[in-house]
C-alpha cells in the first residue's frame, strides 16, 4: 500500500528516490543500457545513460570494467551517441553519458565530473555496483562535448581523454600543459565543415604528450552521431559510408583506451589501420 501511494502520488511530484537500476535493457547479445539519475549542483537532477558489458538478459557481466564518461555535442541528444556507447560496451568498456540542459554541455560542464562520482561510488545493488574499475577511467566528447572533456581532464580524475571532431579551448592551454602523463586521442574527420581540420590540428598541438591525432579520411562532423543528415543538409557530404566511419571511430577509441590504461602510452601502429595518424 505504501509503495503504491508513493508511486501514484509522491513520485508524480517529488519522486521515490533517484533511479539506480538493478538490471539493464539489452541492446545486443553482449551489451545493455540503464538510466541512472544523480544530483549535481545541490539541486539539479541529471539523467545519465549507462551502456555496459552485459549478458543477453541485461544483467551485467561478471568483473570490473573500465569506464568512459562521454559528453554530448552541442544540441545533439545523448540518444544519437548510443551507437558508440553500444560499440564500446561490446568491446568491454562501460560508457556513461550525462545529459545537460537543452543538450548544451557548456552551461553545466561539470556534469561529467559528477558522473564520474556516480561511477566511483555507484548505488548499492545497481548494475554498476561491483562492475566498475576505478583505476581505468576516461572522459571524452564530440564537438562542444570535446571542448568540455578537455576542461574536465585537468582535474586529474580521469586516466585519459578523447576529443572527437573538436579541439580544446585555447583558454585551457596552461591547464592542459600540466597533463604530461595523461594520454589523449583526438579523432578528426577529414571533411569536417564544423570543426575544420586545420583548427583540430592546431588544437592537437596544444595538447601535452603523449597524444595522438587520428584523421578519418572521408568522414564528416556528424558521422560521430548516428546520422550524417546534418552534414548533407549543410552541403558537406561525406566520402565515407556511415558504417565505415562508425567502425573506424569505435576501433580507434577502443584501441587508444586499452593502450592508455595498460601503460599510459599511445601507439600509432595500433591506430593507423583506421586513420591517418600523427603521434607526439
Amino acid at each position: 500500500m505504501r509503495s503504491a501511494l508513493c508511486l501514484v502520488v509522491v513520485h508524480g511530484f517529488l519522486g521515490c528516490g533517484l533511479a539506480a537500476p538493478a538490471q539493464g535493457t539489452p541492446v545486443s547479445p553482449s551489451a545493455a543500457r540503464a538510466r541512472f539519475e544523480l544530483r549535481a549542483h545541490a539541486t539539479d537532477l541529471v539523467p545519465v545513460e549507462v551502456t555496459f558489458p552485459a549478458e543477453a538478459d541485461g544483467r551485467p557481466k561478471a568483473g570490473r570494467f573500465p569506464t568512459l564518461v562521454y559528453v554530448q555535442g552541442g544540441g545533439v541528444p545523448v540518444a544519437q551517441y548510443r551507437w558508440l556507447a553500444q560499440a564500446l560496451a561490446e568491446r568491454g568498456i562501460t560508457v556513461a553519458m550525462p545529459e545537460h540542459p537543452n543538450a548544451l554541455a557548456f552551461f553545466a560542464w561539470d556534469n561529467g565530473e559528477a558522473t564520474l562520482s556516480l561511477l566511483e561510488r555507484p548505488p548499492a545493488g545497481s548494475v554498476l555496483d561491483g562492475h566498475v574499475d576505478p583505476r581505468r577511467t576516461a572522459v571524452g566528447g564530440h564537438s562542444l562535448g570535446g571542448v568540455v572533456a578537455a576542461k574536465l581532464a585537468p582535474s586529474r580524475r580521469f586516466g585519459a581523454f578523447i576529443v572527437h571532431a573538436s579541439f580544446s579551448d585555447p583558454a585551457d592551454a596552461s591547464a592542459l600543459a600540466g597533463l604530461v602523463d595523461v594520454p589523449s586521442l583526438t579523432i578528426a574527420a577529414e571533411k569536417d565543415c564544423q570543426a575544420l581540420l586545420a583548427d583540430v590540428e592546431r588544437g592537437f598541438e596544444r595538447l601535452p604528450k603523449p597524444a595522438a591525432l587520428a584523421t578519418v579520411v572521408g568522414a564528416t562532423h556528424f558521422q560521430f552521431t548516428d546520422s550524417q543528415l546534418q552534414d548533407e543538409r549543410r552541403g558537406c557530404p561525406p566520402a565515407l559510408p556511415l558504417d565505415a566511419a562508425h567502425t573506424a571511430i569505435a576501433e580507434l577509441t577502443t584501441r587508444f583506451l586499452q593502450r592508455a590504461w595498460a601503460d599510459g602510452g599511445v601507439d600509432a601502429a595500433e591506430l593507423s589501420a583506421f586513420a591517418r595518424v600523427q603521434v607526439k
Partner: protein
Amino acid sequence: MRAPALAVLLFGGAALAEAPWFAVQGRPETLRLGVQLGTRSLTAGLLVPDAPKARGSLTAELAWGFLDRTVELRGARVWQLTPIQGGTALAFVGGSATLVPEGRLDVGLGPQVGVALSAGVRAFTVDLSALVGAELFPGALTLRLTPRLGFGLSTALGPVQVSLAIRGGLDFALQAAPVGRGEAAVSVSWLREPARPKAN
C-alpha cells in the same frame, strides 16, 4: 554578447534560489493571486499589500520544480520606491527555502535582494528586474551566489493579468564551474484593485 546572454536565458537549467516572480510584476499596491507555468517549474503565489494603496507589500510563492523534483518556498518584502511617469520602481528583500527530497535529503536556505522597474500602462507593461541571492545547502556542502536578470511583458484585462517573463543568470559556487540558469514562464494573476475614494 547578445547571443550568449540569450542562450543562458533560454537554455540554462532551472532558475533556482529565486526571489518571487510576482514581486517584479509591478503594482505592489494591488492584492494578487496567481499561478505560473514555466519551462521547469509550476508556481502558485500571492502578494498582499500592507493596506489599500500602500507602498509596501508581502509576497509568497510555492514552486514545484517538476524536472528536478524539488520544491521551493519563496517570500519577500516589496517596497514601491517611487512612482515614475508611466511606471513604478520597486525594491525587495526576501528569502527562499528549497527542499531536495531525493538522493541525499537537503534543504537550501538563503536571502535575495533585488530591484525592478515596471513601465507602461495597464494594457501593456514591461517589467525589468535585477536580483541577486545566495543559498546554502548543508547536505551538499554548497554555497552559491545567484545573480539574475529578468524581463517580462504584462497585459491586464479587467481583474486578470497575463504575463510572459524570462529570467536568467549564472550560479557561482566555490571550487565549481559556473552553471547557467534560465527559465521562461507564463503567469495568470487575479488582481483586486484598491477601492476608489467615494465622491462627496
